[in-house]
Every structure is written in structure tokens, then in C-alpha cells.
């Protein structure tokens, strides 16, 4: 279970006006109207939320679950224990 998934789902609902049913882990972002630019916007929001620093390299993300996996990976990399 992703540690960040519930927070990400709640933020998608709050920030983008989506419903709980829409933000399942397997839900495709493009099908929700979240295009690539909106995805980058969302990743910036997640930076602030989780105090992360993204590399600036594009990350291929297609689903809600993939956002959570990317955030989990960065959390692990950037936490004091992970370094």
C-alpha cells in the first residue's frame, strides 16, 4: 500500500474537483481530463505538500497510482533515512 496514495487522492479531489470514484489507483489521468500540463502542475503541488524536490526530469505518469509510486520513491530517496 502506497503511503502517499490517500493524500494524493484527497488532493486530486480538492484541487481538480474530481470524485472519489474517479481517483482510483488504476484511473488514467487523461481520461479524467488531467492532461500532461495539469499533471506537472499537480506534481508541483505535491512538492509543496510533501516537502519534496523534483529533479526537473520528465517522469512518464499515466495513472493516479503511478503518481503515488513516484512520490513514494522520492520520499524514500529524500528522507534522511533514505539518504
Amino acid at each position, binding site marked *: 500500500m502506497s503511503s502517499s496514495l490517500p493524500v494524493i487522492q484527497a488532493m486530486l479531489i480538492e484541487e*481538480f474537483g474530481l470524485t472519489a470514484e474517479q481517483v482510483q489507483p488504476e484511473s488514467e489521468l487523461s481520461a479524467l481530463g488531467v492532461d500532461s500540463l*495539469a499533471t506537472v502542475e499537480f506534481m508541483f503541488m505535491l512538492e509543496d505538500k510533501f516537502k519534496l524536490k523534483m529533479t526537473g526530469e520528465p517522469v512518464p505518469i499515466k495513472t493516479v497510482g503511478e503518481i503515488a509510486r513516484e512520490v513514494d520513491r522520492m520520499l524514500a530517496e529524500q528522507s534522511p533515512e533514505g539518504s
Partner: protein
Amino acid sequence: MRRVVVTGVGALTALGADADALCQALNRGESGIRHLDTPWAGQLTSSLAAPVTIPVADRFTKLRRLMLDRVSQLSLLAAGEAVVQAGIDFSGDDGLDCGIFWGTGMGGAHTLEQAYLESLHNPEARPRPSTIVMFMANASTGQIGIEFKIRGPSHTHSAACSSSAVAIGEAFMAIRHGRVRYAVAGGGESLLTLGVMRAWESLQTLARPDPEHPETSCRPFAKDRSGFVLGEGAAALLLESEETALARGAPILAELVGYGNTTDASHITQPDVGGQARAIRQALDQAGMVPEDIHHINAHGTGTRVGDLHETRAIKTVFGPWATKIPISATKALHGHVMGATGAVEMVAALGALRSGIVPPTAHLAEPDPECDLDYVREGARHLPGIQTIMSNSFGFGGNNVVLVATAYR
């Protein structure tokens, strides 16, 4: 050459949510000018403005407005009103034959200022990824295309105060010469931000607030005029060729018949009587009209000392003795100076006068400047049942002069 008709209008201004609200408020002499109550208003010398006060952002989904500066939100709503009134769906082949001609002076000023503020206050901060696509000058143009599936040529015109008048004029020419059959034409402006307003204050063209009646502070053609009040808003016309309008049975609101566009080539801010007069003549010539054919002028009428005087002289230069016979309205006294959108807002107001037979007043004109001695309709809205032809003047910084002429359709 094709005849060009108006089949839809839209306006979102300090005077209300649509074109009807604008025209009715103008005729009642209602002012949209007030003191801003934003947290930073105290940093201004004068917080007078003519803001759009109805909720705007809520009209869009959260996802949609993620990419929309306020100027694009206003633009989409005004364009939508015109498209709906025209009763046309551009998602089919008609969308390929429709152009977008949109004017704006400053584009997404709110977005740009926010990005600067964040970046300057915090070197670590990164502007939002959508910053560029929200503040670029053609953001509203592109968003109108996306919203209504309009896929013909798109043009973004930035000519300060005449931007949207240029847009309407160029759309008129494009239809007239057969480049497109339809056009969404107009403009939007939303620049009521601290940085932009302070810059305008430095230019010393803004009205001195009336301490007791701030809503009357902009007084075009008055002896005690002291400048204009910044406003925000958007306005749009749906233009199409006469043949398409007739073929689809669309109600025709008016016919666009003349467009003048000249450059002063003399000074970046000082208006030039000669340049303005040439634009008025061009528009009359294209319309095949003589001065006596013009029944009403919506003046640029900003309320600056030199601007009103020069416009009065330009009108006299072209119209001669007929100048004193034309009811002239300066509606910026009520909806504020909507900058890049103001030409379109005033064209909507003038078309409203043409359709209703009621000419709006030049408000707050208690004592005219002796040198501004034309008929400025200062007594209040005037019934003019025989009105057949209107002219709208828009003169912008940079020395651009634009004049549009429309007639009742027959």
C-alpha cells in the same frame, strides 16, 4: 465583397454579466466605479477601479481554470454569450471557417504579477508550470478556440486601448474579403493588480477621486475632468457573412460597414487630431457614407484633458457643421476604461443604442469644457428612434486610431 453582419454580442463588465446588463446600466447612468477592497488597495494612491464584481471563476471547473488567467475567464464568458446568441455550433465544419480575432493590452497580468512576486520574494520558488500559457498575450485567443472548437485563423491584437477595436475591424475585413465566413471578435482585459495599477498611477492619467461620490470620478468632456478609471472586462461580437446568416436563418442584429485604422507616428501617448480624423474618414469612406449619415458616436472619451479635446477637434474636422448634430456618448464614465477590451465593450454599447433607439448618456458631465462643445448627451439617456448608423472611436497609446461604423440591417 461580402456584407458582414453581427449575429451575436456578449459583454462582461463592471456593469453586469451580459450585454443587456451593460446597455441597461449605461442608460440608467449607473456607475461600476468604486474603491477596491483588496488587501493591497491601501498601497495605491487611489484605489478607484471598475472591477467585474460577479463571480467569474466559479463558472469553470477547477481543472479548467487551472490554465485560465482571469482575463481568459472573462474572455470565454463574453465570447460564449455571443456564440450562444448567434445560435451556432462550431464543433462541425463551420469551426474550420471561423476565425478568432481577439484583443488584449496586457494578457494575463494577474498570472505574471503572481509569478514575479513569488520569484522575487523567494529565490527558491518556482513559478507554476502553467504560468507561461496563462499570461501569454494569445492565451485567451487559444482558449476561445479550445472552448468552442473554432479552428480557422487566429489573430491576437495588442494595441493598448484600441486592441479589441482592431480585432473587430480585422475580423470584418477577413469576412468581407472572403477569408472566413465567421469570426469571434472582441477582447478582454484584467489588469487590476497592484503592480499594474501603480504603473498607471505613475503615468498620471488616472482620475482624481471625488471624495463624496467616487463613482462619478471619471468625467469625460467636463471642465473638471482629471483622467480615467481603470476597469476590467471582456466583450465579443459574432460576425458572419450575410449569406451564411441568411442561409441559417440567424437573427441579424446589425451590419458592420466601415473600419478605419491609422497611426499617428508622432508621439507614444499624445493623441493626434490628424491621425484620428484620418481614421474617421477612412471608416466613412469604406462605408460609402457622408458625415450626415452618422447618427451616434460612442467616443473614445477617456476623460483626460488632452484626449477629450483632441477627439472633439477630430470629430469637428471630419464632420464639419454636422458635428454639433451628433449625439456623442463617452461611456467610460460608467464602465471604466477597459483598456484592450474597451473598444469591443463600447461597440457593444453602440450596437445596443442602434438596436434600442436609446443613446446612453455621458455621465457626470455637469459643466462641459468650453472647448469641448459638441452634443455629449449629458442630460441622461436619449430616445433616438430614427437611429440607423453608429460609429465607435478607439484611440490607443502607441498612436493607433481605430474607428468602426455599423448600420441597422436592411
